[in-house]
């Protein structure tokens, strides 16, 4: 009998264990009845009493915090929110996100704590899984580069299919983030086509972030090509004299043939990239033209796409030659950032590309310049455009794509979430999350601007990673990375971030001046594309970047130039013939559209 009872108990326990995993606290994708309805502005306002910073009614409603500039924030009763940082590669935070000093200081003022979580997988994959399962956090930060592909398409679909809260009428109540929609901060094209496309029926689901709220705060990404200084000196080449991709190619051939070694005495790779080939196009930059879109006008005044032209083939054949000649790292197309950084950090790659900051970070992590100062990576060129003008960072009137923050319908307290963002984007809040505490981590200079204290600044010069880690443990200088909306740091503090004025890498500062931002006037013509009948379906294959990458990268590994050319021409033919040759109809439509106004920019 005892045995029987034991057997029954064990079996019951096993069944219970099996069933335990089946519970679902959230509304599943296949249970529409229990899926939360899309919250409207009115819902959110009535549920949470959306902060009305100027309303007397709201003032009477409860406890408020007023910051040093007179901004008023509703104070919540210890609301905890979670925010997904949907960027592949994770997000470093303080070990204790609730009890660190900055989180405690924010909580003391507004009663809200936001805890972050990063991801180590494809962003699109994560977003798709999250929206389909209905298992979503309170807030999400993700890429939103505009157009109809990748993360942008998923986020737009989620908004239009009731997974996101419409924040159009909520955001104006939070003055420190409301300017994110201003033209100049973002472009008209971005606002009309991506932030509030016609399919949204007047709703706005995303809040643009990491955009500049002032002219001084326009981010200079400092893209380019960089070479180990000892390579240039040994080969007696002035890196600044390299102006075209062909000259760069010849320089690389010389470097390859010389037989340089890395810090460990191993053979070197000539040129590498960071994750998944980011951004090998920099090596072929002199095939590019200075323009805003991928469209161009041909000699007959017809609109065409860059990737349908001979120049596109020439550019990709140039990259094929780089691979064929052993100049471009064959592993780079599938490697991780860490692997790329390892190659730069050990001086194994003679040339690097992408943002200068990446290479500088890589060398800091390994201490390359301390042991081998001669191996410092210095800028090449900058290269020139096809027409001979120097490369710049081309921008339209404002950002046409950016990271965004959005709020799933599962957000437990939209008012608290927006209040938190409003506070950390205020002058006082920005200073707190970036610089920490006056008299402790920073002092005010004569202009009243915060500057990290002398000890931290001194240590940052030689051990930036160590100092960042130390500050992060206290909650300082990591939140802003993914939560600033329209950045005004330089306008307010005279530097874009802590240590920038006193300890920024002088090479980086100098290079930023060589690759300045240039705002091209006009209305980007690609904004008109979605007027084409059946555009969504058409864009799915015509502007499928992964398809293009698949073809071009296949071409880079072709045995002969003819084979590479054939693959590239195959892709062009696919574009022109797919779906019954719809591409020509689309180009004809764009040509007609191009005649409707005279301020189109290409």
């Amino acid at each position: 009998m005892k045995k029987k009872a034991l057997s029954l108990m064990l079996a019951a326990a096993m069944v219970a264990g099996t069933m335990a995993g089946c519970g679902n606290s959230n509304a599943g994708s296949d249970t529409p009845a229990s899926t939360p309805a899309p919250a409207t502005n009115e819902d959110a306002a009535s549920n949470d009493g959306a902060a009305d910073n100027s309303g007397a009614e709201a003032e009477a409603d409860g406890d408020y915090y007023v910051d040093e500039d007179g901004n008023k924030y509703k104070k919540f009763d210890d609301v905890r929110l979670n925010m997904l940082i949907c960027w592949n590669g994770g997000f470093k935070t303080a070990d204790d996100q609730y009890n660190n000093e900055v989180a405690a200081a924010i909580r003391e003022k507004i009663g809200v704590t936001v805890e972050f979580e990063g991801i180590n997988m494809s962003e699109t994959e994560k977003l798709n899984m999250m929206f389909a399962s209905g298992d979503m956090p309170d807030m999400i930060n993700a890429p939103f580069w505009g157009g109809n592909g990748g993360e942008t398409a998923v986020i737009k679909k989620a908004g239009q299919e009731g997974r996101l809260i419409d924040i159009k009428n909520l955001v104006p109540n939070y003055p420190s983030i409301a300017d994110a929609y201003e033209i100049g901060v973002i472009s008209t094209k971005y606002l009309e086509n991506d932030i509030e496309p016609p399919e949204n029926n007047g709703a706005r689901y995303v809040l643009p972030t990491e955009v500049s709220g002032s002219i001084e705060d326009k981010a200079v990404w400092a893209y380019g090509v960089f070479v180990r200084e000892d390579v240039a000196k040994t080969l007696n080449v002035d890196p600044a004299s390299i102006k075209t991709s062909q000259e760069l190619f010849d320089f690389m051939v010389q470097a390859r043939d010389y037989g340089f070694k890395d810090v460990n005495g191993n053979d070197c790779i000539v040129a590498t990239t960071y994750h998944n080939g980011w951004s090998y196009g920099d090596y072929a930059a002199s095939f590019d033209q200075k323009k805003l879109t991928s469209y161009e006008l041909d000699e007959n005044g017809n609109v065409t796409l860059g990737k349908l032209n001979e120049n596109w083939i020439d550019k990709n054949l140039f990259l094929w030659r780089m691979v064929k000649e052993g100049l471009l790292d064959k592993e780079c197309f599938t490697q991780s950032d860490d692997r790329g950084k390892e190659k730069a950090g050990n001086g194994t790659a003679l040339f690097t590309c992408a943002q200068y900051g990446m290479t500088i970070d890589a060398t800091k992590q390994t201490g390359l310049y301390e042991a081998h100062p001669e191996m410092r990576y210095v800028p090449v060129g900058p290269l020139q455009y096809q027409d001979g003008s120097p490369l710049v960072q081309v921008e339209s009137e404002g950002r046409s794509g950016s990271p965004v923050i959005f709020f799933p319908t599962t957000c437990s307290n939209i008012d608290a979430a927006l209040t938190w963002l409003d506070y950390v984007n205020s002058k006082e809040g920005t200073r707190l999350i970036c610089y920490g505490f006056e008299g402790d981590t920073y002092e005010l200079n004569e202009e009243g601007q915060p500057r990290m204290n002398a000890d931290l600044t001194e240590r940052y010069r030689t051990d930036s990673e160590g100092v960042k880690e130390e500050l992060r443990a206290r909650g300082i200088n990591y939140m802003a990375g993914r939560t600033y909306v329209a950045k005004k740091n330089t306008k307010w503090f005279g530097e874009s971030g802590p240590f920038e004025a006193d300890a920024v890498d002088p090479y980086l500062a100098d290079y930023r001046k060589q690759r300045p931002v240039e705002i091209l006037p006009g209305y980007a013509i690609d904004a008109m594309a979605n007027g084409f009948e059946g555009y969504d379906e058409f864009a799915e294959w015509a502007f499928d970047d992964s398809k293009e990458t698949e073809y071009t990268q296949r071409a880079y590994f072709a045995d002969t130039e003819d084979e590479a050319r054939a693959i590239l021409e195959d892709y062009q033919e696919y574009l022109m013939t797919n779906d019954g040759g719809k591409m020509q109809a689309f180009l004809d439509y764009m040509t007609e559209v191009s005649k409707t106004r005279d301020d189109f920019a290409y």
Partner: protein
Amino acid sequence: MGGKNTGVVLTPEQKAHNRKRLMTEIWKHRMLYLFMVPCVVWLLIFCYAPMTGIVLAFKNYRFDLGIFGSEWAGLKHFRNFMTSPEFWTTTKNTLIISLLKIAICFPAPIILALLLNEVRAKKFKSLVQTMSYLPNFVSWAVVVTLLTAIFSPYGGLYNDIRKSMGLEAIFVMGERSAFYPLVIFSDMWKNVGWSSIVFLSAITGVDQGLYEAATIDGANRWQCTWHVTLPGIAATIGIMFIMRMGGILSADMDQLLLLQQPANLPISQVLDTYVLQTGIKYGKFEYATAIGLVKSVISLAMVTLTNFLTQKYAEVGLW
């Protein structure tokens, strides 16, 4: 096992008697059946209940409406897949890789089991067995990272050896011609030991008297293996083969996804990686489900066909 049809027609009384006997047997072994309940529950919940999701293949999926609430799309996704250029490429690639694995990787554990069975030194046998099982516990991510490190043109062991021999370094992982050997070699390294367990256990079930009789009749060890051991485990081999054929359109996604490089994409894009790409990455859940359903139907057909053939020619079958 076997599922042989004797052709005997039972009377209703005999059927009732058999049913009663079955119930008596079940009651007699009720504790064992009770222990089986969790597995059955697990199977129903995790294997059968999700099958209702197949309906997604016939829908235009919307996040807010869910699988069952979304509008019907008929056979649109099947048509799109069948007429897409990816259909033939991915199907062909999947079949080539699967058939290569069946031809080379399927017999490998049988051979290993037969060889291990002949080892007389117990300690050595245990050592070899343990060593061969270990790679099974290494994830594909680690296996491919190891391969990448070994074959890297920049400091990889393989290319260092080539260079020391005066040869040029080559990017093995990116060579299209190296793709199939890499797939087969890594699959065999990882799975051969673990897969041999089932055959080793089948070998231990072979009647020892048969070996004695064969030896008395003058059979040597090779003849014992060929005429006693192999026929003795034929049923196990048959069943494993039927099951393997069922997975002919599953070419081990983890491995292939990780081994994919721009250069080998035309031969490494298989159905599973394509489903992953279109389904989860691009959010075309319904399209990916349709592909998955096509794959499942073909797999079921393959299992049925193989089962029929093995029953007919080897008297081995799953049902």
